[in-house]
């Protein structure tokens, strides 16, 4: 019962702030709504028992990526509003229509999935004697998924170098 109330409240906030993100005219307000959105998504992760990921969501997403966005918004201070003139070739209504169609299709898939009983999925190798969310995630990350982990760190290194090269004034 409490879980249901929490879920509906958090979902309402997530969707509400997401709509505010894409509709606000002022860019800084949009970024702030995005931060709030991410904080509520982290709350949803806690509700799902993924505490480590909730902390990582706040640390990386809300505290790192969105700060980066805020920096760029402030460095890009324009004299005229950014959406002043619109391209006449842009078909906005078609975009809305397509989005509604995809939403209907996803909803149909979800409804179908809820009726068909899920095939029992064979769980991956049970981690020997490790309890606790962080420990299990860490174990899997460093044993079964070690290679993707190393590739992800290479990706972050390359992205870091790329971002520095792109944003420097003189090279």
């Amino acid at each position: 019962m409490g879980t249901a109330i929490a879920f509906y409240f958090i979902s309402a906030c997530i969707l509400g702030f997401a709509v505010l993100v894409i509709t606000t005219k002022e860019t800084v307000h949009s970024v702030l709504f995005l931060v709030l959105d991410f904080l509520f998504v982290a709350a949803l992760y806690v509700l799902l028992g993924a505490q480590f990921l909730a902390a990582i969501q706040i640390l990386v997403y809300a505290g790192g990526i969105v700060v980066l966005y805020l920096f760029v918004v402030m460095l890009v201070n324009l004299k005229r509003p950014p959406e002043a003139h619109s391209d006449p070739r842009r078909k906005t209504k078609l975009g809305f229509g397509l989005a509604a169609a995809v939403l209907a299709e996803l909803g149909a898939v979800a409804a179908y999935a809820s009726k068909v009983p899920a095939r029992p999925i064979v769980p991956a190798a049970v981690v020997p004697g490790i309890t606790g969310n962080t420990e299990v995630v860490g174990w899997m990350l460093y044993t079964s998924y070690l290679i993707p982990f190393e590739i992800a760190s290479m990706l972050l290194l390359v992205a870091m170098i790329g971002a520095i090269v792109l944003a420097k004034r003189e090279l």
Partner: protein
Amino acid sequence: MEITPTHYMLLSAALFIIGVVGVMVRRNIIIIFMSIELILNAVNINLIAYSAQQQNAVGQVFAIFVIAVAAAEAAVGLGIILAFYRNKETINIDEMNLMRW
């Protein structure tokens, strides 16, 4: 009322669509990037919901990779925006048409 993964999937679908609408409708490129982050978060919610249902931490491991990729993409994307802004003084995506016919 029991909260099943279907609820989370519908929430994830709705957030995904809001992100897609943001990408398609808005012309400010920073808002477009933020809508892409919304899309990635929708995917993460789905992954973690199913990870909780199956009691298997693979979903969370994958979500960590998604977050890492999102961070890398945000950094490079914002670098590109800054470089473009220094040349053309605009962040309206309709005016970023240097390579258009």
